[in-house]
């Protein structure tokens, strides 16, 4: 069954822009990205949209659909009423380049600031030995497809541009948590998480978890455990004393 849907798509660039109304054909089984492609093919040939896999695995087609950060390729048209007007805008936390395409280089800069996995001295690649139960926990975070929806929705940077300098966002705090939970990582992640990546700015309101298309429990399994690890290091005199006395690796 086909029908004509009402779409409002943001058109413009960094100089300005507006929401433009379109009427586009929708067929059974389609997703929002299909409709954007049809719009591009039939009515707006210069509409800029970033996409790649169309399978929810590349993280390219991130946008805001009816105000909610979503992957366009994973948002089924059947979730909307036929008479509903669907608004599609670019991610609102990042600078816009053109139409639905934003400049997400903020994320790449933050990624560069997280040092890669560092094995202990003397342990060469090929000599790493890990028990399955030790890697299961950080493996959840490896599902991340870097769509940056969590970065987009996080109010710390979305609503406060000035915080972009001092806050790395949920995706990269999760990366730090992943490395801090790694049994063989030798770097001090806890201190830098708080002092350089702004973990204290997170007020655990869980929007990152709500929008994650991979259903990673970012807040409960990465951010809160990382906060607790930082408390061990910075705010808990009993743990500090215990570590001084025992000097035993955990």
């Amino acid at each position, binding site marked *: 069954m086909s029908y004509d849907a009402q779409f409002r798509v943001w058109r*413009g660039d*960094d100089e*300005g*822009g507006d*929401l433009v109304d379109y009427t586009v054909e929708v067929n059974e089984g389609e997703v929002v990205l299909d409709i954007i492609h049809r719009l591009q093919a039939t009515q707006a040939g210069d509409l800029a949209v970033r996409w790649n896999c169309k399978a929810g695995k590349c993280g390219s087609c991130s946008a*805001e659909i*009816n*105000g*909610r*950060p979503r992957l366009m390729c994973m948002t089924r048209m059947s979730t909307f009423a036929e008479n*509903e007007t669907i*608004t599609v*805008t*670019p991610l*609102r*936390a*990042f*600078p816009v380049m053109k139409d639905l395409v*934003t*400049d997400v280089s903020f994320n790449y800069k933050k990624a560069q600031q997280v040092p890669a996995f560092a094995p202990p001295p003397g342990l060469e690649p090929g000599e790493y030995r890990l*028990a399955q*139960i*030790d890697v299961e*926990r950080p493996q959840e975070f490896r599902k991340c497809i870097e769509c940056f929806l969590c970065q987009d*929705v996080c*109010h*710390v940077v*979305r*609503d*406060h*541009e*000035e*915080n972009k300098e001092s806050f790395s966002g949920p995706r990269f705090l999760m990366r730090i948590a992943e490395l*801090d*939970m*790694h*049994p063989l990582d030798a770097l001090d992640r806890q201190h830098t998480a708080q002092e350089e990546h*702004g973990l*204290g*700015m*997170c*007020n*655990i*309101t*869980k*929007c990152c978890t*709500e929008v994650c298309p991979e259903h990673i429990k970012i807040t*409960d399994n990465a951010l*809160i*455990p990382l*906060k*607790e*690890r930082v*408390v*061990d290091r*910075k*705010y*808990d005199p009993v743990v500090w004393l215990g570590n001084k006395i025992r000097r035993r*690796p*955990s």
Partner: protein
Amino acid sequence: MQAGVSAPGRATIAERTLRTDRWWQAPLLTSVLLSIWVLYALVRTVSQRAYFAAPEHYLSPFTSPCVTASCPPAARDFGTWFGHFPPFIPLALITLPFLLGFRLTCYYYRRAYYRAFWQSPPACGVAEPHSKYTGETRFPLILQNLHRYFFLAAGVISLVNTWDVVQAFRPEGHTFGFGLGTLIMLVNVVLLWMYTVSCHSCRHIVGGRLRNFSRHPLRYKAWTVVSKLNAKHMQLAWVTLLTLMLTDAYIALVSSGAISDPRFYN
């Protein structure tokens, strides 16, 4: 610099949010329910009335432990530590600040009240009204990091609540007996334990802080169990608010003589 979603370079969209669902419902409901609960608890704790049913030995969780001379002697299971309390001072003054601290610094409640009361943010993708934001990096919110100490205190208080239930199985003049009130208190204390144990700090302490689960199999097992409970922390947070209120209300009704407690044994 212009703040938030209107910052230079971003897509020029005037609306605070383009969400079309009823995003305001959840924060509104949260603020109403939490306000009702706080008001109820305030009235009940400062009233110093109908908190103990002597024949059944039901002591309200809002007044436990009752260790002042203002409490009836039978309610003072842990002795008399203080003299008479003046009016409007909660009789459980030594425990209430810790319980309040435990809930206030709880990771779930933080999410709830940051969204509902402080609107930071009110909902996902809805711009918050504040022009500046420093999160939990400064006083007083940096004190949220004390949550684990409140958790330990809450554990001790749960032991006290458990003892109250044991006492409710030993009504006046009998070595054993129970009624509807005993079962209500029992359900309440079981749920309180579940809420306390499902705490994120508890999850960290029992095993979350480890890097090598394989070297600590017992702690890994404990962490696995707490993690399962932790997934229900939000539900337990709400359910325990309800059971605390219901338990107290039931004891108030029995204590004041408004209803009589149905007895199942004795």
